[in-house]
């Protein structure tokens, strides 16, 4: 198992976020989250719902990239034109995404960096669906490069997704749907189980120390059990290879390092 990559370890760890979610749409945006959701559906959580990446619901997750002769088989229909009614505003979804920034409250940013809203220094995508996703359904995150530029000191530059920041909560609003679950990075797995939903390190990838994670993070982290993130088993690796025949996962983390560091 020495040839297991860190990306594969992350996929396996991230797939755990989708365990026991019930019949919800599992959306993984980007190769690692998408493979994680697909792996979860094919192993421990067949009840998950999933799209083909466009508009149709599939019971057999669709592999990444050009498909050759493979034709996705459609079991249902969930286009954008009814996505909010059916999946987001009903809370029947769990999304795993990669924002540009995240802060100690779990507030996320996909909109802009620096400057002002009238004239940002760097314009990014825009808030997309983050405000609705975060107030209505569970969300998890994947970051391929754990740095203090991503895990920022203070607050994110533009709060695009709801977190656990009491100062941002308009009194009388219903925040019962805010449910941030898991953060998987190239260094560790974290959750929001600390004091007042503070971010807490729950497992460290092989060879990584808590101090290393803390040094790469712009705010203080809490310590959970600090176990070692498990390596994917042979079944999981086989499924991942099948779902990603072009090895797109190899391009996600810089230099595609092995899961176990060569010291």
């Amino acid at each position, binding site marked *: 198992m020495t040839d297991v990559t860190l990306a594969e370890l992350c996929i396996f760890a991230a797939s755990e976020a989708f365990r026991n979610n019930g019949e919800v749409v599992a959306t993984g945006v980007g190769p690692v989250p998408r493979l994680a959701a697909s792996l979860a559906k094919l192993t421990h959580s067949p009840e998950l719902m999933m799209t083909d990446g466009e508009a149709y619901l599939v019971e057999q997750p669709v592999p990444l990239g050009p498909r050759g002769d493979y034709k996705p088989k459609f079991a249902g229909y969930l286009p954008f034109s009814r996505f909010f009614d059916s999946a987001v505003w009903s809370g029947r979804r769990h999304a795993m995404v990669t924002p540009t920034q995240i802060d100690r409250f779990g507030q996320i940013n996909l909109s802009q960096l620096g400057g002002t809203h009238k004239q940002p220094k760097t314009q990014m*995508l825009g808030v997309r669906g983050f405000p609705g996703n975060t107030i209505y359904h569970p969300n998890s995150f994947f970051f391929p490069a754990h740095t203090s530029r991503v895990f920022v000191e203070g607050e994110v530059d533009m709060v695009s997704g709801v977190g656990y920041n009491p100062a941002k909560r308009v009194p009388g609003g219903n925040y019962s749907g805010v449910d941030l679950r898991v953060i998987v990075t190239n260094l560790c797995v974290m959750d929001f189980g600390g004091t007042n939903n503070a971010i807490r390190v729950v497992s460290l990838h092989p060879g990584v120390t808590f101090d290393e994670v803390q040094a790469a993070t712009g705010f203080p982290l809490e310590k959970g059990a600090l176990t070692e993130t498990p390596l994917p088993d042979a079944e999981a690796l086989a499924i991942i290879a099948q779902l990603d025949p072009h090895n797109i996962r190899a391009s996600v983390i810089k230099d595609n390092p092995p899961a176990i560091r060569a010291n």
Partner: protein
Amino acid sequence: MLDKRMTAADIVSQLHDGMTLGIGGWGPRRKPMALVREILRSDLKDLTIVAYGGADVGMLCAAGKVKKLVFAFVSLDAIPLEPWFRKAREAGQIEVLELDEGMFQWGLKAAAFGVPFLPTRVGLGTDLAALGGLKTVTSPYSDGETLIAMPALKLDAALLHVNRSDWRGNVHLFGPDVYYDEWFAKAAAKTFVSCEELVDRMEDHYPDAAQANIFERCFVTGVVEMPCGAHPSSMPPSYGWDMKAFKAYADAAKEPGDWAAVADRFVGKSEADYLNSVGGKEAVAALPLPIF
């Protein structure tokens, strides 16, 4: 007038400076690009554009046509950051109202139903309300919940590209997803559609496809046949997006990135010229549908 056929120039002549214009489609998909190009050939200016943005927004920003943009994202998918939109934003050139994707369609629905706003939880706990001047309302019922009052996004006009229409404005929209075109049509005082195929009487040609009529002809003011009218965006099942064309367009935004110097390549003197420059109808028809 039951015969709603117009030319693209007729449609643009019905638009005016300073108006609020909705543009259908989503990112690089199902965009009425031929009508957008016709606007780019005109003197129209100071527009408020309401769109799930792609190159439509990028081009109108680059050409200095946009006073204000109402958006949730602007993206070309495989080229995630729309480069011309980005330039306009980083130059502080346009006013914006930034919204969540779901709030956006909620605002179109408020406009369609003629109510001043619709309540939603979306936006609470984020910077959207403060940046956009969005106000809250309190539920008058016993729950007393505080909600954001998403204002109606009333459109003076909407532009859509559809798969087919007849001259009365009986439209058919198909492909895997038609996004929020229905609600753009209903939120607008006037909706102009370009189509891949124009037929005389829909019932004589496609009587078995009436479920594709996702909004009714009372919402259609004008119709023009413009095959390949979504290029370079995708128009399933007829053609996919033209990523090579998007890439050339994105590359042209790099320094010095002067739109006036490159606009001819992406707009053309006429739609016929434009289509020729991208290889004609056959080349567009051969563009494969995207894989997700």
